[in-house]
């Protein structure tokens, strides 16, 4: 397998995706879960740009990547707001504590 910039970008996408999946399974802190989601979003962003580069339609990749950046930022803002409110109401940032809530 010859290493081209596209191959290296694909490897980076895969490794970031693997780290993000591991983080989603291993992390319990709510703010850290937002950080893990950011890592996964960056992997998707790089995938779109690499796909645009590979297909020769980099502008299409850029327009899709813009949507991903906006969605990723909104996810971070809303996720952090939820984490802060959970901390205020329950006094913890542990995701496992949320499972003990009763209606």
């Amino acid at each position: 397998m010859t290493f081209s910039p596209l191959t290296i970008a694909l490897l980076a996408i895969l490794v970031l995706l693997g780290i993000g999946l591991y983080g989603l399974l291993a992390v319990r802190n709510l703010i850290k879960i937002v950080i893990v989601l950011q890592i996964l979003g960056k992997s998707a962003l790089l995938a779109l740009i690499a796909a645009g580069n590979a297909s020769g339609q980099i502008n299409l990749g850029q327009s899709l990547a813009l949507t991903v950046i906006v969605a990723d930022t909104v996810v971070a803002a809303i996720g952090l707001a939820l984490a802060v409110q959970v901390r205020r109401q329950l006094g913890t940032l542990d995701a496992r504590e949320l499972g003990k809530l009763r209606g």
Partner: protein
Amino acid sequence: MMILYGCLTLGMVACAMLAIRSSRLVVSSLWLAALSALLAVLIYLLGAARVAVIELSVGAGLVTVLLVFAVGIAGDEAAAQKPLVPRLLSWGLGLVVLALLGWFVLPLVAAPSPASQPSLASLLWEGRALDVLIQVVLIFCGVLGVLGLLASAVPVEAAKREQALPALEDGPESGPIAEQGRMQP
């Protein structure tokens, strides 16, 4: 050039690992900002200069500010907690998914470039107008999220005060406050 690509990729992987493994949330946020900066450079080298600038300003700037602000409000709770899923199983699942994706994705080769492609502006405003409108809605949702981040705990305290008021009006002998007073030695 390939060495630069390799160094950028290794740096991104190291930043992502350190962002997850760091025990302090502020330090994790800073590693995430470093990851965004390296990603912006890689995107720039791949030919997407505009998205690289936006990623650098939004990913490494705005999101980091939001994260540090949230950590400042919620507190830098120690992250040394036992994971939900055993660590070995997490690594195993991550590696299996990675291997499967690599099996399918890595043989891809670059396609021949089309003769002409529309500009980014025409793609955004004509070809993907609905997406742009949805992005505007998403940005409003983000603003509401930031307002939730900034909202103080006053409404909850006011609700508790309102709950306590009828008990006070009933008299000092009844209600939760009187009961609390009786329980104290």
